[in-house]
């Protein structure tokens, strides 16, 4: 049977994990690396690179390399204009529409970029299962994590990314909750837990009550635009202020790499070097203090929402790479009055929890249950641009809410409805989720129709809407136009395109492999031709063989830069055949030499 996995689709790094004999494990690549840098790069020939290779390309071809794409998920181009100016890649899109990211001569939406990362993780997992000797190593279903504070548009964009990558997204779960699930495994404890999740781009706080294996989120809060990236930016500003602001994109990436290294250094050292000068942890702490302080307010708010005092929290769990910073640990410890837990690797714990949840879904295991909440209130626009709340934040999901609508004019058959998410009074201060037209209302005098609109938030935290006219018992059709999302048709098209491009990408991969093979044969041949013993060996070859080898070599070199993979392969074969006897003779000689050497030593 095909396999299911849990995926942590992170701002900086992504991971894939699965449950093996009851315990979750991270799937690593051949070099033992569990983290896949969430970076996607396009070569001039259109080949897409993901992960470490893309990370290397940041230093050589920054303009065609995308990182931190998670920050753009479910966003409109107007939301990200300020930030986009600091990034090396091209960010565009129509005002009021979704963000588009330019990569080479193609344009992608953030879900499509994320899909490259997901596909790479899928490939990694499938290669791993194949190596394990699985008969069916296909990975077609996954639980994917999102920051708890992600809104509906950001969750939907994540689910779309999964679909574009050819994954059935079984469930979207919140990162802090996933982490608590991973922690809950080895400790059958009951009590109140605070999960402080400070990652590369987002911050979350979740307060949970664990009892009888039920992990019930009481309150959640956060900032989907606050993370290690912001710390890196501060440090980059510091360096750029010293070296001058006008730098090439590649130089800026070098500086970025250096400040990240300095940040890491200061997690276990008191002092390091930055831009050729000493840089102390004290200076670092002073610089980043405002950022860390910004995480504490949501913590206090979440405690207040859960009607709890910090002293009532039994355990504090740290998640996300940014919690390695000593200042973060100290301030979180002070706020909750206890030393936070960090037994599990903060980079891996979310993926492990996602794998556990995936296993719960397919295995039917009822040992544990996650009960999460919706992070933001859901409402609709009413007269005067005011929001009327229908489902309040921190409601356990799935949740429903309904609202009665009527008409304002005689024989009116449609009503416009604007759905929003957020805590503010006014429409303009909240996040627009969708606008739709409620059609098919039977013609009646104004105010008479009674249309009940039902809002359903499912276990993924994603909204759906249905409507019902009560007087006539007619079910309404609703066309939801997402404000900052993709329509089903667009997702479908992107999935198909990804198949087409997968073929193109695959072809590009094969071409590169053919060139690599040709290169190997050319180098081996040239090495043989230059060998001091060549003249001696050549005498053993049939007449004209040396000429045949030389002309095959010239022929192959001539087609090396062509894009015709078959031609390259054909010429490679010709050269390979021509050199076979030569290679054998060379081999025999070296074996003899080795053996005779050995004999000498043994004597």
């Amino acid at each position, binding site marked *: 049977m095909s396999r299911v996995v849990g995926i942590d689709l992170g701002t900086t790094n992504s991971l894939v994990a699965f449950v093996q004999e009851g315990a979750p494990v991270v799937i690593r690549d051949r070099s033992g690396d569990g983290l896949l840098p969430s970076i996607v790069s396009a070569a001039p020939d259109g080949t897409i690179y993901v992960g470490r290779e893309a990370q290397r390309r940041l230093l050589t071809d920054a303009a065609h390399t995308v990182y931190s794409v998670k920050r753009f998920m479910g966003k409109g181009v107007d939301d990200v204009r300020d930030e986009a100016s600091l990034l090396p890649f091209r960010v565009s899109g129509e005002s009021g529409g979704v963000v588009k990211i330019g990569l080479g001569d193609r344009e992608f939406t953030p879900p499509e970029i994320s899909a490259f990362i997901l596909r790479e993780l899928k490939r990694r997992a499938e290669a791993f299962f194949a190596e394990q000797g699985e008969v069916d190593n296909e990975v077609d279903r996954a639980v994917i994590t999102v920051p708890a504070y992600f809104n509906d548009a950001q969750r939907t964009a994540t689910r779309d990314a999964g679909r574009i990558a050819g994954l059935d997204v079984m469930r979207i779960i919140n990162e802090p909750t996933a982490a608590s699930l991973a922690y809950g495994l080895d400790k059958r404890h009951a009590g109140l837990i605070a999960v402080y999740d400070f990652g590369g781009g987002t911050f979350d706080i979740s307060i949970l009550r664990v009892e009888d294996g039920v992990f019930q989120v009481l309150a959640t809060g956060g900032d989907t635009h606050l993370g290690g990236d912001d710390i890196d930016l501060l440090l980059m500003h510091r360096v750029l202020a010293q070296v001058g602001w006008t730098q090439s994109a590649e130089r800026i990436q070098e500086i970025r790499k250096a400040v990240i290294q300095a940040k890491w250094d200061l997690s276990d050292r008191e002092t390091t070097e930055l831009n050729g000068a000493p840089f102390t942890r004290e200076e670092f702490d002073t610089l980043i203090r405002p950022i860390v302080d910004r995480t504490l307010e949501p913590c206090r708010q979440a405690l207040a929402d859960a009607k709890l005092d910090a002293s009532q929290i039994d355990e504090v769990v740290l998640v996300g790479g940014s919690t390695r910073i000593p200042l973060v640990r100290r301030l979180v410890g002070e706020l909750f009055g206890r030393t936070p837990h960090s037994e599990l690797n903060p980079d891996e714990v979310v993926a492990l929890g996602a794998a556990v949840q995936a296993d719960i879904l397919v295995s039917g295991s009822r040992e544990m249950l*996650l009960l999460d909440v919706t992070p933001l209130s859901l409402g609709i626009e009413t007269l005067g641009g005011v929001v009327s709340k229908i489902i309040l934040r921190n409601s356990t999901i799935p*949740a429903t809410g309904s609202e009665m609508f009527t008409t304002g004019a005689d024989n009116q058959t449609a009503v416009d409805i604007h759905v929003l998410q957020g805590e503010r009074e006014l429409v303009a201060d909240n996040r627009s989720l969708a606008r739709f037209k409620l059609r098919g209302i039977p013609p009646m005098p104004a105010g008479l129709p009674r249309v009940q609109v039902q809002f359903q938030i499912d*276990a993924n935290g994603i909204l759906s809407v249905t409507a019902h006219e009560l007087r006539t018992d007619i079910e309404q059709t609703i066309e939801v136009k997402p404000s900052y999302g993709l329509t089903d048709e667009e997702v479908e098209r992107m999935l198909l395109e990804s198949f087409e491009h997968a073929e193109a990408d695959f072809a590009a991969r094969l071409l590169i492999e053919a060139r690599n093979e040709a290169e190997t044969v050319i180098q081996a041949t040239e090495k043989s031709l230059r060998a001091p013993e060549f003249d001696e060996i050549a005498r053993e070859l049939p007449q004209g063989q040396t000429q045949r080898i030389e002309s095959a070599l010239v022929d192959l070199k001539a087609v090396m830069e062509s894009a015709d993979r078959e031609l390259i392969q054909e010429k490679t074969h010709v050269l390979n055949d021509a050199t076979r006897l030569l290679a054998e003779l060379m081999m025999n000689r070296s074996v003899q030499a080795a053996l005779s050497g050995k004999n000498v030593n043994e004597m």
Partner: protein
Amino acid sequence: MSSSSPAPTIQVCRDCGGGAPVDAHFCPQCTKILSIGRHGDYFSFLGLPRRLNLDPAELEKQFRTLSRQFHPDYFYNAPPGERRASLERSSYLNDAYRTLKQPVARVEYLLQLEGFAPGGPDQGSKVPPSLLEEVFALNEELDEIRDLRASGAEESVWKARLERARGPIEHKRDAHEAGLQELSSRWDALLDARAGIVERRPVLEALRERVLERNYINNLLAGIERELAQ
């Protein structure tokens, strides 16, 4: 006259066509999860009496037990109909839990169930008679404070007066909390004694009065908060 319609007592399993008690969650015949149709109410759904003094631990326990029975996580592999039923039943459970957990929301819900829901065009907007005195005094005070502010008085001065103006209203609210509590206990006693509508009606009407007053008081306090925030 009772304004609450008689509640249905039977539901039909869409899977096997068998009958089931209205507050059953699973079909007694085929054991499949029942789709949510003409269900009872939040209290019966949770298997709790319509009491206003609920044991919070009991509510939490029921919530967890039922969550473990219905949650969509446990119906991932089930046929679409059962998945749908699990989603509906879980949603309803969560809505019920959220409502009954909060004492005031619980009273409001009970009033609605019993056909005494606050509402109507004039209810809520006009000043409850018992609050006339306080509201009159507060409005006068607010006018004076606005004048003070308009004449350029120190912020600390008018803010201190606003803070003081809150006192009597908050006092009134505390008194109302106590009143609600006392009425809630009376309701529970009537319920335990299986009292009829004639005895229940005055308690329900008094509860409705209290809820309206409470909402009015909260609006007054929110108004002061808004002034302070300026």
